[in-house]
């Protein structure tokens, strides 16, 4: 195979079905029309449709929601009529103060490090694809795979809140109320998952082919 000209499915006018992975020959289509996979019926595209625009929109939305997710309380412990709001960071701090180091690390990693790294790596991937970067496509593909796989782990805090809220219902002694920050945080996780899904890693490799193509 000629290394200067990689044989990709798109170059051979073959579209890979998103769902069942079958290859189908694609003729040029009139804009706005759809074709479906003859095997499973899913819509066929050479690349995920509007990949960059969708991924950018979702990533920017996640950046915006990231602010209330970290500044608003994710839950409030109401004890003897006195409320004590907890943000994501203060929750981690409380775990450290209680000497629960491994748990503090886990929550810090899942709720702080993963969302930030995910947003940064999505931004980097989008910028690098848009600038038609030819730099280390294989490593960028690995970065994408990690970004896609790790995002769901950020939900730990949200699930923890749902357990605490149901468990601690001691009337005037102590109750736990969910806060608006938890909603914003869950939205960040869900939206970045959608952003990673709408990004097409094959765009990273398209830049290696003729730069004036597409």
């Amino acid at each position, binding site marked *: 195979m000629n290394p200067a000209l990689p044989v990709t*499915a798109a170059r051979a006018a073959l579209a890979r079905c998103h769902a069942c*992975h*079958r290859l189908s020959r694609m003729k040029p289509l009139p804009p706005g029309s759809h074709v479906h996979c003859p095997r499973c019926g899913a819509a066929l595209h050479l690349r995920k449709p509007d990949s960059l625009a969708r991924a950018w929109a979702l990533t920017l939305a996640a950046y915006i929601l990231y602010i209330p997710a970290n500044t608003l309380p994710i839950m409030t412990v109401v004890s003897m009529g006195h409320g004590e709001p907890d943000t994501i960071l203060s929750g981690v701090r409380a775990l450290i103060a209680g000497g629960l180091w491994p748990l503090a690390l886990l929550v810090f990693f899942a709720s702080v490090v993963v969302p930030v790294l995910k947003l940064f790596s999505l931004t980097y991937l989008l910028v690098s694809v848009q600038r038609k970067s030819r730099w280390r496509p294989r490593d960028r593909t690995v970065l994408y795979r990690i970004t896609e796989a790790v995002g769901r782990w950020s939900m730990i805090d949200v699930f923890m809140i749902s357990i605490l809220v149901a468990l601690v219902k001691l009337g005037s002694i102590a109750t736990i109320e969910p806060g608006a920050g938890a909603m914003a945080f869950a939205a960040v996780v869900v939206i970045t998952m959608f952003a990673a899904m709408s990004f097409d890693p094959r765009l990273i490799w398209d830049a290696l082919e003729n730069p004036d193509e597409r």
Partner: protein
Amino acid sequence: MSDPDAPVFPLPVADTLVACHDCDMLYRKRPLREGEKARCGRCGALLYTRKPNSIERSLTLALAALILFVLANAYPLLNFQFQGRVQQSSVLSGVRELYAQGMWALAVVVFVASILAPLLKILALLYVLLPLHFGRPPWRMAPVFRWIETLHPWAMTEVYLLGVLVAFVKLSDIATIVPGVALYSFAALIVAMAATDAALEPEAIWERLETRR
């Protein structure tokens, strides 16, 4: 599904060629030994595998997952004992409490990730695998099997269990927390679901659909 004027037409290429899902590199398919994996030479992604007794093994594990799912949702997850009072919490009660406190969007997210998506995934797998085991594809198999892949990232059973453990450790300082039957069922459910995914060979199932047409 496919009308005769559609610009897509089935060609023998479908059986002999495979494209990498991460970099679109085109490869000729070669027969694999059982347990062997074909990887993309350019980006390292997994192209296709061959697994022994894929349908029977994944069917058995999916049945086990269904039983464990019922146990994990029918019993209390954690028991909270404080000054003689006992408060129980199950997966569903967490969702209900969020909803009752006006956080319906959060309740929906937790419900989908911890109950709905895992359950639908297990049921869809059984719907496809059980008839296939007896030699005939089920009605509307293609859309149902397509759904399984869509549901996959939203079924967050293993993440949920970590959330439970964090809540457990946080509260054990101030009260007595006794783990319930559901906690152990949940842990086993995660193992069963991961093993089902590992035993499943989607390509083989899709190919069965093609030979039927």
